[in-house]
């Protein structure tokens, strides 16, 4: 299991590939990998967005993500999990979050990766402030429910 907070842009494919290579004990053991990647869009709520600042609470963010992953591991037969989340100044098209779950069977991978994403969205202390093309700044106020 690994949880990473990235102050610099990250390449999700490189992160997954490197993690999967480093976790040699899982080779040949997993049948299913479910991955979610959240990416910054260049528009939101009808406005053009130039960039975003992602604030977090160092220490609490990692602690909450570990609790979420531990809860997932308790609920599903998970072989491994990787969570990467960007912080700092983010540009459109930058990956913001990566959740990867390795399991034996696909249903568990889908369920667990979605659970981790939903819990991350509702409990992990990150906050987004958008910088609009108009130069106005605005804090996002609420995450939507991804099960709807």
């Amino acid at each position, binding site marked *: 299991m690994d949880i990473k907070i990235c102050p610099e842009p990250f390449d999700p494919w490189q992160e997954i590939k490197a993690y999967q290579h480093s976790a040699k004990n899982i080779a040949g053991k997993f049948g299913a990998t479910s991955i979610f990647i959240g990416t910054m869009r260049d528009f939101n709520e009808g406005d053009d967005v130039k960039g975003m600042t992602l604030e977090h609470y160092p220490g609490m963010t990692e602690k*909450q993500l570990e609790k979420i992953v531990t809860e997932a591991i308790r609920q599903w037969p998970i072989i491994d999990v990787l969570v990467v989340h960007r912080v700092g100044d983010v540009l459109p098209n930058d990956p913001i979050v990566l959740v990867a779950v390795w399991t034996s069977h696909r249903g568990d991978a889908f369920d667990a990766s979605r659970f981790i994403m939903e819990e991350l969205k509702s*409990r*992990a202390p*990150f*906050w987004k*402030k958008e910088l609009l093309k108009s130069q106005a700044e605005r804090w996002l106020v*609420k*995450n939507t429910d991804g099960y709807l």
Partner: protein
Amino acid sequence: MSIKVRYFASLKESIGRSEDNLESSGLATVGDVWHSANPNKALPDNILAAVNMEYVGLSNPVKDGDEVAFFPPVTGG
């Protein structure tokens, strides 16, 4: 007792501070910590609280050395 108070995101901006170091007696709960640090300001609606990086309610007790944080609903992911 000594309590470190931290503020994040839009709350930090509206308060104009990122942290306070309270040295005071008579702080029993998280709500007391807010009022001691911000005597003229009601806690805004929807603000979340944590003690030592765990979510808690405003009536949660605090003790010497705790880190208490206040912040708006999270918007990561």
